[in-house]
């Protein structure tokens, strides 16, 4: 093995080709004067990660992200690589990075065997599914038959569901290999993974910081390339916020776009299954696979599923202003007080980039915007108090050893559920009690009507709305632990979208200072119901033309070989 690379701070900066935040997006980072240092560093990086096309030295400058799914497919069909090679590479990287970030609660024991199955399929000349050989991480609140599914909770420690969630079944039918189950805040309640009953996941950009939540493990796994893509769930921002913190693409589909069958319910009127990818195309391909009506989920939509990836052209075919005519509304309430200055600056730079692509940006105001947060927490806690009553130690999960039935419920739940979950159940119980329902739950539902209407009005005048996904970059581990309201405040940019059931896409757009290479910031794009194709097309064009950024975390260069 070659010796570890020289890790001087300047070479780290060069590796990531990130623009220091005070330089305007138009200026290119000068790299040539330190090229000899860069070359030495890259040689070692290459030997560690040479098989991954995404981390080849020539790509480290300004090549936009490409589709890993399509490149795996191409390499399988051309026989350049085997599925076993690909799986081996990802498993290897997973094992090397896991001690630093702990994204996974469970790693599959059958990955190599499934990869060999894919190779047999390739050899037989039969048709390959769109995700053949693609390693997928699945958030642990999504049921996978035979693999533990805990929802991040001790009450379900060791629980193996007897069925696959519909989204998982569809992934498997498309040829995907489920590499493992990812860490999360318990039952989706939290924004950092510190609410997990098992472990805290670290952000690959700075391991003293959180990856976000509740789908923190899924986001960090994709960011650290432990898997190609992953599934998460988004009830109040749990896909979009970690996507922003970890510098990956996060997609929250329209409510009803993806079946919730097999997703452990947190708030049934708000939950959706979403996905993470290192590029917009990869997210689009996953959306294609998991979308569609499901007779086992009566809230799933019969709205037709277009081929989301077919709208995404290669940059060779872009005109000079591919977004000409697009009307973009920047949500005024999300770029003012309480938002980190660096985040505002990244979002404004992203807006400038959209303008360069031909779009027109207008500030819009959404009335009732700030009411969304208390309304969300009333609705979510109330629905959760009902949904989590099934975890009682009777039919599955951990059961306390007691002599009497009421204690069975009380003690099993007390032992198995974490403090945040308990608090939200209690708050929800309060809000739904006789005499309080009208004051809290019903009023929250009325606020939901106001918010739906305000989005609808705004999206009649604009094609899409944009905002940051989070008011700040990733928090330090431990920063928000004892202050529930401070943690809830971080969801202000995301909850209204869930209340309105709209789709949203988060695309990494810049950095703020922090960590050894900066902390990523994501741009959130919101569309009207079932407008995922529009969002993905715009996100793809934005991502492919974003100058000078590479969202590859330092962990992948700092890991010991």
């Amino acid at each position: 093995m070659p010796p570890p690379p020289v890790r001087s701070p300047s070479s780290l900066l060069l590796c990531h080709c990130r623009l220091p935040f005070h330089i305007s997006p138009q200026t290119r980072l000068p790299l040539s004067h330190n090229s000899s240092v860069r070359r030495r560093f890259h040689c070692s990086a290459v030997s560690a990660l040479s098989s991954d096309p995404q981390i080849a030295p020539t790509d480290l400058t300004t090549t936009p992200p490409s589709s890993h799914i399509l490149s795996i497919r191409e390499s399988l069909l051309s026989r350049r690589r085997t599925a076993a090679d690909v799986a081996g590479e990802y498993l290897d990287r997973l094992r090397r990075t896991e001690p630093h970030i702990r994204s996974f609660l469970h790693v599959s024991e059958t990955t190599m065997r499934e990869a060999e199955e894919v190779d047999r399929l390739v050899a037989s000349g039969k048709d390959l599914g769109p995700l053949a050989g693609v390693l997928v991480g699945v958030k642990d609140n999504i049921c996978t038959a035979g693999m533990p599914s805990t929802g991040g909770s001790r009450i379900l420690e060791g629980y193996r569901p007897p069925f696959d969630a519909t989204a998982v079944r569809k992934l498997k039918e498309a040829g995907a290999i489920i590499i493992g189950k990812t860490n999360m805040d318990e039952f989706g309640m939290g924004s950092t993974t510190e609410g997990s009953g098992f472990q805290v996941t670290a952000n690959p950009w700075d391991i003293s910081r959180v990856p976000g939540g509740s789908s923190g493990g899924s986001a960090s796994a994709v960011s650290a390339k432990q898997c190609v893509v992953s599934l998460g769930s988004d009830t109040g921002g749990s896909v979009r916020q970690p996507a922003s913190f970890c510098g990956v693409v996060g997609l929250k589909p329209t409510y009803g776009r993806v079946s919730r069958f097999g997703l452990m319910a947190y708030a049934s009127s708000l939950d959706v299954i979403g996905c993470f990818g290192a590029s917009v195309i990869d997210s689009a391909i996953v959306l294609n696979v998991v979308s569609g009506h499901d007779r086992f989920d009566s809230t799933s939509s019969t709205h037709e599923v277009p081929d989301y990836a077919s709208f995404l052209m290669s940059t060779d075919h872009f005109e000079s202003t591919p977004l000409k005519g697009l009307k973009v509304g920047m949500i005024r309430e999300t770029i003012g007080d309480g938002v980190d200055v660096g985040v505002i600056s990244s979002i404004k730079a992203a807006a400038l980039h959209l303008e360069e692509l031909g779009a027109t940006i207008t500030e819009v105001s959404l009335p009732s915007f700030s009411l969304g947060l208390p309304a969300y927490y009333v609705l979510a806690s109330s629905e959760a108090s009902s949904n989590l009553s099934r975890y009682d130690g009777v039919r599955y999960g951990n059961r306390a050893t007691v002599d009497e039935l009421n204690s069975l419920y009380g003690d099993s739940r007390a032992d198995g559920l974490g403090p945040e979950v308990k608090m939200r159940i209690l708050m929800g119980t309060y809000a739904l009690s006789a005499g309080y329902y009208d004051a809290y739950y019903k009023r929250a539902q009325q606020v939901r009507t106001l918010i739906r209407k305000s989005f609808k009005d705004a999206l009649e005048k604009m094609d899409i709305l944009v905002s940051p996904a989070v008011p700040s970059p990733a928090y330090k581990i431990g920063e928000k632990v004892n202050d529930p309201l401070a943690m809830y405040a971080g969801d202000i940019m995301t909850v209204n979208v869930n209340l309105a059931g709209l789709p949203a896409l988060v695309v990494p757009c810049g950095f703020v200072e922090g960590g050894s290479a900066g902390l990523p910031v994501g741009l959130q794009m919101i569309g009207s119901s079932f407008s995922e194709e529009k969002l993905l097309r715009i996100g793809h064009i934005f991502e492919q033309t974003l100058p000078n950024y590479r969202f590859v975390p330092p962990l992948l260069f700092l890991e010991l070989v």
Partner: protein
Amino acid sequence: MATGMTMSDATLLRRLSTLLVARSGCPRRMRLFSSYIVRGATFEPPDVSHLADSARISLAPGEVEDFGPKIRQVIDWFGQLQAVDLESVEPSVRADAEVSMYKREDTPETFENREAIIRVAPSYDDPYIKVPKVLSKE
């Protein structure tokens, strides 16, 4: 004062509004909403032990002390919802406007993996899932 409201209801509301504003420190102007009446309840602060009982969670005494102030703080914060004029706003049960008319056939199907369901039950004595007896007088 709108019709349908008694003097005592209006006074209660005004006092309640002041209390909520004082607790949450919310600088919003409170408005009396004409047709909204708080029935029965006097908006007592959350009794954590009672709630834990209803939710069937056996809280340790330390937890009751720890959760109490945090829960009260969040419930106070929820009070912002009282400050808004929501008269004639229809509540939205869910996000989407479209109501799916799809109904599946009402015919039972056998789940093919009953073995796996039974296997995860903590205590099974065919055909029963066993639980301890009910001893309490409730």
